[in-house]
């Protein structure tokens, strides 16, 4: 049996399509400072994938899902490298001051960016204090997943997923309220 990641196909990999998908995903998800570099990031990631493919497998061609996974991994490696560099520059500017412009922020306004980061931190604090099933449900909900999808991912019935999302979100609102954050 050949697993998905090892599947050899007879078709040439469509790197153009892969490039397009990766750029679009970075553009949609990542903050502006990263999204603006999407083309370069993806280019580097794809070159790494092609190099790995050339070295390890000679002329073998792989399924598009395998290539996408490999490209994603290479892309995240690149993004993490850039993030580390970014963090150093932010920390050296003294983030605790709260008014330093953060180029990593999607917000053009430093005050709004700072407020957004504060709420983000509060959400993470609240999630950390939540009972695990609700935390999992709320985290995935905040990540953009629908209730049925949360159920599928976590092996719950739709009803259970709905219940945990509902209760978890109520917990989160209560917790944020106790921190003085109204939403």
């Amino acid at each position, binding site marked *: 049996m050949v697993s998905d990641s090892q599947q050899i196909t007879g078709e040439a990999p469509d790197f153009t399509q892969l490039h397009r*998908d990766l750029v*679009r995903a970075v553009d949609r998800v990542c903050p502006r400072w990263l999204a603006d570099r999407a083309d370069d990031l993806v280019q580097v990631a794809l070159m790494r994938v092609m190099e790995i493919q050339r070295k390890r497998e000679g002329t073998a061609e792989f399924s598009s899902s395998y290539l996408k996974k490999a490209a994603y*991994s290479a892309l995240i490696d690149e993004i993490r490298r850039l993030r*580390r560099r970014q963090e150093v520059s932010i920390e050296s500017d003294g983030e605790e001051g709260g008014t330093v412009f953060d180029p990593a922020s999607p917000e053009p306004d430093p005050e709004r960016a700072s407020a957004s980061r504060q709420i983000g931190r509060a959400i*993470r604090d609240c999630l950390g204090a939540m009972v695990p099933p609700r935390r*999992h449900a709320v985290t995935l909900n905040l990540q953009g997943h629908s209730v049925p999808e949360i159920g599928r991912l*976590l092996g719950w019935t739709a009803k259970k997923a709905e219940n945990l999302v509902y209760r978890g979100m109520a917990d989160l609102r209560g917790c944020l309220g106790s921190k003085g954050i109204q*939403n």
Partner: protein
Amino acid sequence: MSQDDQQLSKLRAAFAAPAAAPNPESCPAPETIWAAVRGELPPRELREVVDHTAVCAACAEDWRLAAELIRESSAAPAAVPGKVLQGRFGRWRPLTAAAALAAGLLIAVGIYRLGDFGPKQPTYREAESTAIRSLMPADQPLPRQGAVLRWSPVAGAESYDVRVSTEDLRLVLTAESRKEPSYAIPESALSSLAPGTKLLWQVDAVLPDGSRRSSPTFSAVVR
């Protein structure tokens, strides 16, 4: 968009706000996140990754990137066959390929709907609620004077970027930072185009967190 949806959107945007990773050494490998998003991890490992993304903004972003990428590849058939083409400007395939693709999709979607089978694709409330639709009247040519492109507004969008090109991908115009979900095409932009020229147009909604929602590619014929 209901009040609950608006609140959820705000919370999601705040949760997506950049923050330093608490301990980058403990971050899961990209391959692990990918497998988690695809639901390929054992339950305990999956929960560990989700727990990590609950407190690590960077890995939460990596998760969303994987989800978007997986959704991206599976969402292409969602385009309305024969009317819109998915994709960004400047990278469209030739029309013949698009027509063949559209025909293929028509068959595939038809089979999928009739049989109600096939892989369950990830769905995102956010993506559904922010999908951009053309509000242009169907089958009506674009007047040379007073032509206005209109699209459905995206809740929370700060601005819109518009790109218009000919069918052979020659850029006709771009307009950025539009506040309204419409754009009046200057007469001069259409003056050099022959009657019956087919235009392709696409809109990007820019959201408060800096992310973008791209519309499908719509078409219109110049009168």
